[in-house]
């Protein structure tokens, strides 16, 4: 187990380095000059002289050859120094850390909502006896997957805030401000979970061990919850790691629509301002969340499925005679 973890952490480090390098390559090779972007206040043409621009460029180290910039940045990053923001001049770590709190609240809340909604719809879609109700439940996820988040967010604001005047349209104050963005963010994730689960439930209920459970005299509820659900949830757990990534990227849209501070908003602002150190840090953050979520899922998986044994390793395949 420890050997497995060591190997996985090593893999994670490689993924982080690759993401960092790729982001560097894309950002620095892309057309567009961060110095020009910083000096041009807003939309107007640059008001600074060429000399001022050169001085700024030298101060940021952008006049040195690319490889030197890259090596310096990697070395700094390894020591935990992600540089300072071009835009605000504060430390990148501080800026990202500050935006992390609201986004964590938002995504955690959305994840909980998505799991609750996804599991309920997935379970009900095979449990209800009415054929009409069942087909409605089975088509909800398809709609949820195809509705874009910005649209569902705007519709929520329109209906809940403006028409019914139940919740504030924008702002981040407390639970009332959190609910609507979390719902908007949770919809596609819940739909993916529900779709996967209802399909797997239908398949699992046809398996022979379910017949064994029926022949014991088990009730429908017992068969669904104790026997089918645990088996059917395994593929859903597998994709949960990826869905966390989906939530993080969804926060970009949701935070913009609801004018919430957070990682998503910071991403948009930094990309617009060519604030390269911050964008770099956000890319690493995204990769880190993704890697950590998937590692957590992989480590937890054997607890749910006893047939999977991490210590045996994937590299050894037993041949049968």
């Amino acid at each position, binding site marked *: 187990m420890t050997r497995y973890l060591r190997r996985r952490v090593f893999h994670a480090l490689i993924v982080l380095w690759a993401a960092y390098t790729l982001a560097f390559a894309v950002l620095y090779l892309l057309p567009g000059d961060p110095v020009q972007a910083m000096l041009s206040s807003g939309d107007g043409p640059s008001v600074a002289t060429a000399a001022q621009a050169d001085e700024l460029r030298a101060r940021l180290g952008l006049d040195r050859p690319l490889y030197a910039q890259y090596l310096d940045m990697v070395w700094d990053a390894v020591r935990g120094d992600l540089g300072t923001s071009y835009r605000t001049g504060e430390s990148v770590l501080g800026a990202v850390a500050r935006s992390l709190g609201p986004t964590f609240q938002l995504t955690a809340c959305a994840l909980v909502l998505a799991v609750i909604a996804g599991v309920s719809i997935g379970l009900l879609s095979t449990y209800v006896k009415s054929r009409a109700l069942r087909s409605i439940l089975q088509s909800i996820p398809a709609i949820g997957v195809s509705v874009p988040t910005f649209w569902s967010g705007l519709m929520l604001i329109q209906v809940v805030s403006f028409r019914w005047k139940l919740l504030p349209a924008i702002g981040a104050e407390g639970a009332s401000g959190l609910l609507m963005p979390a719902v908007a963010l949770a919809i596609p994730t819940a739909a993916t979970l529900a779709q996967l689960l209802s399909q797997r439930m239908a398949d699992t209920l046809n398996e022979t061990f379910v017949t064994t459970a029926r022949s014991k005299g*088990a009730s429908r509820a017992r068969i669904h919850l104790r026997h089918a659900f645990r088996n059917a949830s395994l593929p859903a757990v597998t994709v949960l790691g990826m869905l966390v990534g989906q939530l993080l990227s969804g926060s970009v849209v949701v935070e913009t629509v609801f004018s919430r501070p957070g990682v998503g908003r910071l991403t948009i602002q930094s990309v617009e301002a060519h604030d390269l150190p911050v964008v770099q840090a956000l890319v690493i953050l995204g990769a880190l969340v993704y890697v950590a979520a998937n590692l957590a899922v992989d480590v937890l998986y054997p607890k749910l499925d006893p*047939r999977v044994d991490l210590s045996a390793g994937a590299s050894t395949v037993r041949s049968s005679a």
Partner: protein
Amino acid sequence: MTPPILRIEGLHVGYGRHRLHPVVIDADIEVQPGEVVAIVGESGSGKTTLANAVAGLLPAAGAITSGRITLDGHDLVAASERQWRSIRGRLLGVVPQDPGVSLNPVERVGSQVAEVLQIHGLARGRAARRRAVELLAEAGLTRPEARARQFPHELSGGMRQRVLIAIALAAQPRLLIADEPTSALDVTVQRRVLDHLGDLTREFGTAVLLITHDLAVAADRAARIVVMSQGRIVETGSTDHVLRAPQHPYTRQLISSAPSLTMVRPRRRRTDEASAPRTPVVAAAKLVKAFPAIEEGRRRMTPVVADVTFDISPGETFAIVGESGSGKTTTARMVMGLTRPTGGIVTVNGVEIGELPPKQARAARRGIQMIYQNPYASLDPRFTVSDIIQEPLRAFGIGHRTHRRRRVAELVERVALPAHVLDRRPDQLSGGQRQRVAIARALALDPTIVVCDEPTSALDVTVQAQILELLLDLQRDLGTAYLFISHDLAVVRQVADRVAVMHNGRIVDQGATATVFDNPTSMYTRELLDAIPGKAHR
């Protein structure tokens, strides 16, 4: 006389949209308390549907269209879902067909047994767990405390079937329905499991409805036999009566097809061949195959086949018999040149196929062909029968088109298929017809030896008998040698000239079939012979 525990009267079960396709027609069966009744029939006879109707486990596509089923005073046809829940598991236990897929893979077996007690309110919590361990012990599992904490995938097929028996008997039901309870198991395991099941049901006074395709198993285990064919009960009677004086022609056919019930004299080698030894078509010398496996945390080579030596003369049938894991299939693969031996030499028609460069190896393979176990998987569903049989000819570029077509027609006639099947696809053929196509394909290149890997174990007994006869006829006419791989001693006894018994990768007995069967030298062979069902009725 006590009233029967189970009474089935005029039962009809239909499948399909309007239940128009009858699967069980007008069935009448009575089972007395504590009695074992066997329902015997081939696939499609309706025996499993009948069992499912009694257990209330018919699939959504099927339903009882008329008739009555009464279990211990309860009307099962009219029972509501709620009533069923107190009947299933409590009055009626079910031992399913395939232990491999019948247990919940993510739950410890102990709690799967305890669940029955919890559902019916017989015990809960720690008491239920303790009782589950006792039940596992009663079902014949050693170290039941440890087993109860294991998951299904950590147990062998035989052990899983014992767990399922513990589940079925946990609430001491009045009737047990066992649908082919051991047909997925090796013959020695089958015998032990059935012995144990018999002891338990006798002890508890449980009546048993045993569903089986194997007349010999029914003969050993049941007091009465019900024979089903095409949805109808064609014969009912005491076991002795049905076997000694069968009334219906179908029953007679079933008895004569069952290799373990018929007293076939073992084949003897024809003297003319025995007296003039010729170069063997297959010669295996000290064959070893080892696979890397992890044992106690260390990688080491585990031998699956060890020190196997035999040879096969032209025109003879050499059988390798063994249970699953004995190494018989690996041996066959080495003979075919599909798996490279770790040690030893195997030659086919004088050459070592595995050691030849690819091109020559291909040419050498012409002389050795194979018939597979499952004719449903071994034929390409998109090819016509004619394409399938022609394929080897085309692959080796033999003859031009008209010549090939003539050869295919000739082969189809040889395997006794009507000429009109040539344009059909495999899914339009029955299992027996498919296996005939596979045989025709194997013979297309005039091989000197054909490897038959369990060629009849996927087929019904009456079809099996026809296919075995065909193989023997072809051998007489064409002089092809067979390497016959089988777990079924009764079949081997019928077809083989010489036999090798494999156990744990080694040959434990080898010789002329009559010698090995009449005077087995190893303990294992004796056990294997004892386990053949139907002994008392031969």
